[in-house]
Every structure is written in structure tokens, then in C-alpha cells.
């Protein structure tokens, strides 16, 4: 939802080709509110964010403390049971969500920043710049992203920062291709030519003329990038590549995975948390897509 709002911040209404309605944000929000899937996703995500923000202090159990015997099944005291060290699973989920959701958000921002920069330069300038940047994109695409992230984290250390940067660095090619395609489509349209004739420089043309009009698909892809980043964080932590000092949903899964046959709750709940978060985000992505791409609304 904040992504939708930020469009208007960046959108310079004077250069929009089509005279926009009184408030495009409100129009988009109204559209978004009409998509039941999007609203459900937004409510669930909001709940998860609030739970991780305020949950730990309300629940009041330290996620690193021994709360009971190891592998206590879910009961009245420990609602979701305890893990292999006897730590409270619910406390871990509430605390761990902070790291997981933060990594997801920040990594998605890095992904989009790199992708949009490379894609817009390639699409706007064309020629040798495009050839070079497309080659670089192609190069990054032949490296399996998750595997590349594993190598980066293994080599450069297991901290939350490394994990976040690694996820961003390996995930940008699809955003770059998308942005490039939009820029190629837009750069020769009349309103861009008009701005250029009016004396606008390249920087102004890219940032204030073309980019605002290329934003709708980029926003959708940014939303989905958060989900992918959360899945990547989970995958890295699952393999033991997370930050061992910061509780996260992936870390809980990775540390308890060998006990799945004896204590299902140690693994089922953290995984379900990741699942619900990613599901909510992709529902939001669908809703945003419907709201800003009215053309596509009727499609599957």
C-alpha cells in the first residue's frame, strides 16, 4: 500500500502525458480496495507487521530463554511448543519476524534500485550502452540466484547485512529487463520528444518523464520481490547461512529441521509463518496489479 502512495510522490503531474484524474493515488487505492485478494493480503501483512512490532513485548517471553523442557508440544503454557533447546516457538516467531520481514523489504529495495538503474539506462540510451548492460544482465541470469547468494554469504560472512545485500545483488536481473522493456517502449513517444524539444536533459527525461510512466509494472515487481527475498532469506538460513545471532523464521527452520519427525511443531510453525507472509505479499501484488493495470483486470 505504501508502494502505491509513493507513486504520486514521484509522479510529476505536469509531465504526465494524459491529464490525470484529481488524485491518481485515491483512484488506485479505490481500485485496490475493490480487489478482495489484495485487501485480504494487505490485512494479513499488516497483522504480521504489528505482531512482530508489538508482539514480543505483549507476549513477554524472551525468544532466547529456556522456557521449558526441549520439544514440549504445544500446550496451555507454551502455545506453539518449544524447540530443541526448550525455547518458546511463539516468542521466536514474534521476534524472528522482525528480521525476516526487514530483510525482505530492504533486499527488495536493493533489487529494484539496481534493476531500475541498469534497466532504465539500457532502455533509454540504447546502442552500445544497452548492449553492454544487457550483456551484464545476461551474465547474472545464468548464475542460479539462490546458489550465487549462498556463495556470497559463505565468502563474506554470515551477518544480516551480508544476507540482505547478497539477496539484492542476485535478484535484480528480472527487474532490469522489465524496466528496460518499458523504457524502450516509452522513450520515443511524443510526450518524451516534447520534453526533449523543450530542453530537458537526459537526467530529467529519465527520472521525471519516462520513469513515472514506467512505474506501474515496476511497482508490481517490487511487491513480488519482497516475497522472493523472504523466501531467499528462509532458504539461506535453512542451509545454516543466516545470521546465527539474530532470530529469524528461516533460522528457526534450519536449526530444528533435523527434529521434524519427533517434534513437528518446531518446523511447521516457522515455515507456516513464511508461507503466510509470502502469500499475503503475492495477494497484494495481484491487487496492486489490478489497481494500476485496469487493462489486465479481466484476465486470469
Amino acid at each position, binding site marked *: 500500500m505504501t508502494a502505491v502512495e509513493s507513486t504520486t510522490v514521484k509522479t510529476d503531474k505536469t509531465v504526465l502525458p494524459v491529464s490525470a484524474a484529481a488524485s491518481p493515488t485515491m483512484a488506485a487505492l479505490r481500485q485496490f480496495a475493490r480487489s478482495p485478494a489484495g485487501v485480504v493480503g494487505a490485512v494479513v501483512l499488516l497483522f504480521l507487521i504489528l505482531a512482530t512490532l508489538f508482539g514480543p513485548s505483549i507476549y513477554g517471553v524472551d525468544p532466547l530463554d529456556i522456557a521449558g523442557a526441549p520439544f514440549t508440544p504445544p500446550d496451555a503454557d507454551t502455545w506453539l511448543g518449544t524447540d530443541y533447546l526448550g525455547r518458546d516457538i511463539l516468542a521466536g516467531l514474534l521476534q524472528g519476524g522482525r528480521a525476516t520481514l526487514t530483510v525482505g523489504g530492504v533486499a527488495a529495495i536493493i533489487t529494484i534500485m539496481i534493476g531500475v538503474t541498469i534497466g532504465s539506462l539500457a532502455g533509454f540510451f540504447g546502442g552500445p550502452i544497452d548492449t553492454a548492460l544487457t550483456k551484464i544482465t545476461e551474465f547474472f541470469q*545464468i548464475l542460479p540466484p539462490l546458489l550465487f547468494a*549462498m556463495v556470497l554469504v*559463505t*565468502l563474506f560472512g554470515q551477518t544480516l547485512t551480508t544476507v540482505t545485500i547478497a539477496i539484492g545483488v542476485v535478484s535484480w536481473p528480472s527487474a532490469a529487463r522489465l524496466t528496460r522493456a518499458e523504457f524502450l517502449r516509452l522513450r520515443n513517444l511524443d510526450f518524451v520528444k516534447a520534453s526533449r524539444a523543450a530542453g530537458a536533459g537526459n537526467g530529467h527525461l529519465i527520472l521525471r518523464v519516462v520513469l513515472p510512466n514506467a512505474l506501474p509494472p515496476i511497482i508490481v515487481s517490487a511487491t513480488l520481490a519482497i516475497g522472493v527475498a523472504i523466501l531467499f532469506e528462509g532458504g539461506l538460513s535453512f542451509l*545454516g547461512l543466516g545470521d546465527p545471532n539474530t532470530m529469524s523464521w528461516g533460522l528457526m*527452520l534450519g536449526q530444528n529441521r533435523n527434529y*521434524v519427525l519427533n517434534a513437528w511443531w518446531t*518446523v511447521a510453525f516457522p515455515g507456516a509463518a513464511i*508461507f503466510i507472509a509470502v502469500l499475503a505479499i503475492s495477494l497484494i501484488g495481484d491487487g496492486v496489479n489490478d489497481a494500476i493495470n485496469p487493462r489486465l483486470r479481466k484476465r*486470469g
Partner: protein
Amino acid sequence: MNLALHILRQVANAVGLLVAVLVLNFCLIHAAPGDPALVIAGEMGGASADVIAALRVKYGLDKSLIEQLFTYLGSVATGDFGYSYYFNAPVTGLIAQRIPATLYLVLSALAISVVIGTLLGVVSARKPNGLFSQGVTVISLAGYAAPVFWTGLMLLLLFGSVWPILPVTGMTDVARPKVGFAHVVDILQHLVLPATTLALVFIAQYSRLARVNMIDALTADYVRTARAKGLPEFVVIGKHALRNTLIPIVTVAGLQFGHLFAGAVLVETVFSWPGMGRLVFESILRRDYPTLLAVLFFSAVLVMAANIVTDLVYRLVDPRIRSGAR
């Protein structure tokens, strides 16, 4: 007619990109914190003074970076990807040993997901607002959002303790014969769970893709023409519409080979499947950098090969490209 030339160009491009991957590997070794010799030896490996000294000589670590790069590329050209001090074996051999298991897993997951995904998408496109179609939409959303390692663990729980009808770890049963038909059956049984787990993610994507494209195709003029001239419905869908639905699926399947491989790393770890993914996990655990970097390189080789094959299949499915109108 220009197919040979086209393939040649593709291969040349692939070789260029793969050399770039090697250069990246080289840069990573040198950019990583710490002494490159220690990095190459692996932190947990035989970092004895003798080994380190030998490595310094072998990779010319006292020479300039450019010279070192060419020494590295030279040794790779002879198939030498270094020595794993953890496994106590040359890395190339280790990987060659693990490639078949990974290919079994990845290719069967690919086949399952393309076939089932397309089928689900095509059937649900016939009544886009029907119950079946909505079920497919839910499944594809869920399949996309569920972390593959978690799905794997849940299946392992289900078939490991609740309903033990399938083997949940490894690739073969120690007690079973290692030759002939029984061996094949043994491997196939062990393959069911890992391949299904890995396929689920992609079934979700392909069914969604197939559904959208099939809905589009069914409203296209050529489908109306085919119906108008009285072709039976299964020919209209199976022959005319399906072809156009397959094109994007082939493209996406080819592009996603890297994701498939990365997913295999997680799935192999869950089910102890003895492939390259499991090797990745073990080398991460032991900080065995030569093995890790070599796997990164070989996965890029697999992705390139998949891209070239995709391109050929693409030409086969889409006659417009075959005739060279591109």
C-alpha cells in the same frame, strides 16, 4: 538452414559467458576477506603450512593479479578446479560423481511440472470462473508462496512418520540390489518425494501461465476458424490452442532452469539426495570454497545448456521462428 550457424553462435556466446563466470569466481576468491591461499585451502581443510606453500606456488599467489588470473584459467582449461581438502579429492571428480543424481531430480521435476502445470492450466481455462479453475488458482498461489524446503519437510513428516509408504531419504536402499530393473525401481521410489516437492513450485507457475495463455488463445481468431470449420473440440484445443500456450511455457521453463537448480539444493538437503545440491550444503558447512565455486560454475554450464536447448525447442514449437522471421 542457418540452424548450424545459429547454434554455433549460441555456443560461442555461452563460452564467453562461462569464462566470465570463471573471472567472477577468481575475483570472489580475492575479494573475500583473508588470505586467498587460505580461501582456496578452505578454512576447515588442511590449512597446514605445507599445503599453503604448495598452493602459493601452484596459483602463483606472489605474482601479479593478472598473471594469477591466467594461471587459474589455465588450470581450469585442463579440467582442474582445485582440490577439496575436506573431501580429500579433486573437485572435478566430486562434481562429476554428483551430476547424474541432480539431473535425475531436476529433469523429472521439470517434466512433472510442465505436464501437470499445462494440464491444470488448460483444463481450468475452459471455464475460467468455474470451481476447478478457482481451485487451480488457489493451488498456484499456495505453491508459489510455500518455501520449497518447508513443503519438503512437511512431506517428509507425512511420509516419514504418519503414512510411511515411500522412502524419505537417500537415493537407494542399502539392502536392495544395485543392478538391473530392481535398482531402477529403487531409485524411482526414492525420487518420488524430492521430485514432487521441487515440481510443486513450478506447477504453480506453469498452471497460471498456461491458464492465462489458454484463455487468450481460446478467444483468438484462428481458434474460431478451427471451430467454424467443424474440427472436434479436442483437436481445436489439443492441436491449435495448445501450441500457442506451450510457447511461453517453454520460454519460462528454460529461463527458470537456474531457479530449478537452486531449488534442488534445498530439496536435496531435505531428502539427503546425493546430488550437487547436497554437495553445496556440505561444502558450505565445511567452508570448502573450491567445491562451492566449482558448483557455481557447473550450474552456470547447466543453465547455459538449458538455454540453448530451450531455444531449439522453441524453434520446434513455433514455426514462425523456424522460418527465420525473427
